[in-house]
């Protein structure tokens, strides 16, 4: 099994997958699977648990294929749209499982809320990781040093040799892009 990055840097504006998918190209579904099934599986496992996660992945991609006319490339990313479908399937699954368990109302509500929260959290992480991977390389590197190596902007200047003004502007622009993407694709959706 080939590990695929969640998103590759070349998924830029010239990426034709969204258009081919919307047109019903069957090879586009396979590409979508190669690119994003890991993210969907991760979301499903965090929400319904590992044992039933693959069923959610299957249901998500089949539903995505069947409802492809409703995908509008201008309104958001393919990953964000896929996450919306997967999130709804996973949370519904948890709810129906709780009903089948004949749990008390209180336990059922609690379970459903835990699933909602877990799913929101995972979706936010997945879309932000994707956006981070899509940033211009130098900007991406600066943000990674801030996030993962916990460097201050001055330490980033020392580590990269970039001018202070450039580091600050990378941080500002990169953060703005992550935030916009989070607001478009990662914000919680209705029930």
């Amino acid at each position, binding site marked *: 099994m080939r*590990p695929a990055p*969640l998103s590759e840097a070349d998924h830029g504006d010239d990426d034709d997958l969204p258009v081919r998918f919307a047109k019903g190209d069957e090879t586009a579904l396979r590409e979508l699977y190669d690119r994003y099934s*890991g993210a*969907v599986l991760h979301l499903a496992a965090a929400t319904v648990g590992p044992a039933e996660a693959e069923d959610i992945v299957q249901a998500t991609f*089949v539903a995505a294929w069947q409802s492809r006319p409703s995908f509008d490339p201008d309104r958001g990313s393919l990953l964000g749209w896929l996450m919306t479908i997967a999130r709804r399937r996973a949370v519904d699954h948890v709810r129906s499982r709780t009903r089948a*368990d004949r*749990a008390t109302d209180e336990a059922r509500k609690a379970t459903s809320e835990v699933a909602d929260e877990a799913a929101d959290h995972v979706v936010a992480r997945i879309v*932000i990781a994707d956006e981070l991977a899509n940033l211009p390389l130098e900007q991406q590197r600066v943000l990674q040093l801030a996030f993962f190596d916990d460097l201050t902007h001055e330490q980033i200047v020392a580590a990269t040799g970039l001018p202070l003004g450039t580091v*600050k502007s990378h941080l500002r622009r990169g*953060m703005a892009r992550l935030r916009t993407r989070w607001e478009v694709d990662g914000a919680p959706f209705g029930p």
Partner: protein
Amino acid sequence: MPHLDPDQLVLMALEGDPADDPTAHLTACQECSREVDALRRVAGIARSTVGLRELPPAPDRVWNRIADEAFAPPEPSPGRRATAASRRRPAATAWGRWRIAVAAAIAAVCAMTLTLVFTRGPQPPRVVATAVLAVNNPAAAGGTGRAELLESRQLRITLQGLPAATGYYEVWLYDGHQRMIGLGDAGSGRQTVVVTIPAAADIGEFPIVDISAQRLGQQEHGQSMLQGRFGR
């Protein structure tokens, strides 16, 4: 009073350095302080994405089931759309079908085995509540789990994707402040275990399930890897 400039807002959010806010503007200005909070949340989520960059795709068996369902020949009755769709069926599907047949045979054998196991065993206990266990430590990146509260006052813990334990993993109940109750071994982090909750412990008081990495012989709580909460 002039607002903080965008660079200062970002630095406050990332580094929280009061030197970037010499006039203590943030304490007085709701607008800037909301802005910093939003940026902080984004940075917090971004910091927790370690391990998400290289998620391997789901297994091929899942793809086979998707292809079979998504590209299945439509029911013969509804007219035009059906005809158009069946004309487009790819030639490779015969190979796909063969693989699906093998997968189906394997699944059938597994199902029979499971049926045998379940029909012979006692009825499984009822699940009263479920908590999703999420990563609480970068060392656990990619790990997930689920804690199910059974009516038998037991916890069923299912873990997946944790790194192989150097010692072992342990299940704890945590009150969110200072008290923890060790419930027992969670194995190597890749299996399902059932542990018993002491009769004196109230799950309402200890709503948090914690999975820790323990060194052999370590008595106290080790390194927290996953956490989840009941009833929220």
